[in-house]
């Protein structure tokens, strides 16, 4: 059974095919309006999330399918101590495909051990969030018409930001990309990512704490939120949360065709005044999330033989 746990589970060819399919969905949505008729998506959210869950549900509805699930662990059997694997196996009796989010890292791998239907990782703690990365790739591809030879600035919480980790892994597979990693010292990317993805694969990257200094060379600026829920210590969170706030004046030296992305939700790291700048593309990114999830649901259901 094919699942999507990590963005690296997909080959570059598969990524390109899904991005092409998402673009086709955008161009001719009526063609896809009934392809999942009679099929069900279960959204199992052991950790609250509005955006990702609604995006999955909207995606399934637009494919003509139906949705069931829960949006917090308290309303599931996990509250009674059921294992993730048992929950997934049970839900697999009711649904054709599952999207799950869990606060513990690696929970989707544990969940797929006996799953009879495809499982999509909709975020596991600070670890992976492959559908956000698919969203980011579709957005970059639509903005720049390519995924190679780009300078990508990633700013904010690079330590716990799973979207950052997945995006670096994914973009490192396309040639000629340069990564500018902008964060305070305490929130730099984890050692394993620096070593195994960037250094070992000889990627072009630089680490800095100077957002404005890095701005002129960027094609993409990917802002992230410092996430309160990733810190064990409230003091550390309070000290670091306002490290980077993007305001219109900081964009003075930016390229005219810069694309500003953010996985959302934002707190204050992008000033609302930036929203009116044509380079602010984060709400288009949200919409792209629905389209790429449609393409993903189609791919996994086709591979499972559930739809033609």
């Amino acid at each position: 059974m094919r699942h999507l746990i990590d963005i690296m589970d997909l080959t570059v060819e598969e990524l390109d095919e899904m991005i092409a399919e998402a673009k086709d969905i955008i161009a001719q949505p009526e063609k896809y309006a009934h392809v999942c008729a009679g099929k069900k998506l279960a959204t199992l959210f052991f950790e609250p999330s509005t955006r990702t869950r609604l995006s999955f549900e909207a995606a399934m509805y637009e494919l003509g399918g139906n949705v069931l699930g829960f949006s917090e662990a308290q309303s599931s059997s996990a509250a009674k101590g059921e294992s993730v694997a048992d929950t997934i196996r049970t839900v697999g009796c009711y649904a054709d495909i599952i999207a799950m989010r869990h606060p513990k890292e690696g929970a989707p791998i544990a969940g797929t051990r006996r799953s009879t239907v495809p499982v999509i990782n909709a975020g596991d703690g600070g670890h992976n969030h492959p559908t956000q990365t698919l969203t980011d790739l579709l957005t970059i591809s639509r903005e720049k018409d390519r995924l190679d030879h780009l300078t990508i600035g990633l700013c904010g919480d690079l330590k716990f930001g799973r979207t950052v980790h997945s995006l670096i892994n994914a973009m490192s597979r396309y040639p000629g990309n340069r990564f500018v990693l902008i964060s305070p010292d305490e929130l730099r990317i984890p050692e394993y990512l620096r070593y195994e993805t960037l250094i070992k694969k000889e990627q072009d990257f630089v680490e800095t704490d100077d957002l404005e200094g890095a701005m002129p060379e960027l094609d993409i600026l990917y802002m992230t939120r410092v996430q309160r829920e990733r810190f064990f210590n409230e003091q550390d969170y309070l000290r670091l949360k306002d490290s980077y706030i993007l305001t219109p004046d900081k964009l003075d030296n930016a390229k005219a065709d810069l694309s500003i992305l953010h996985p959302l939700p934002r707190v204050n790291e992008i000033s609302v005044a930036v929203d009116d700048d044509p380079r602010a593309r984060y709400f288009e990114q949200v919409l792209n999330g629905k389209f790429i999830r449609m393409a993903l649901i189609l791919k996994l259901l086709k591979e499972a033989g559930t739809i033609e």
Partner: protein
Amino acid sequence: MIIGKIEDGIVLDHIKAGQGMKLHEILNLDKLDCEVALIQNAQSSKMGRKDILKIDRLIDLNIDAVGYVDPGITVNIIKDGELAKRTHLDLPEEIVDIVKCKNPRCITTIEQELPQVFKLTDRKAKVYRCKYCESKAK
């Protein structure tokens, strides 16, 4: 120091000096009721100093655990007082229930029946990572 010959058992030789106790612990040798000898800092022409473990019974040895602790260890199987088989080890691709994930955010911390699986991700640097959360084995 004299430690007698064994008739049927296992000799783990060429253990890096200082690693013998760790291996004794990982292999749960304290649970055996047969004779087990741990020789520390034995003289070795090849290694200078080495540790040796002698187990006076043919147990079902967890070879992956031995290879994980030190792939340079030689496993000698003794039958009827003679060397029956000598195995040179390599780092195993995967180890199961030998080390525990120390990441407090890992799913294995709340689901304790899950097998603790670590995969070899860098042979040269001998790096193992948790199958679930990808944290390094410590």
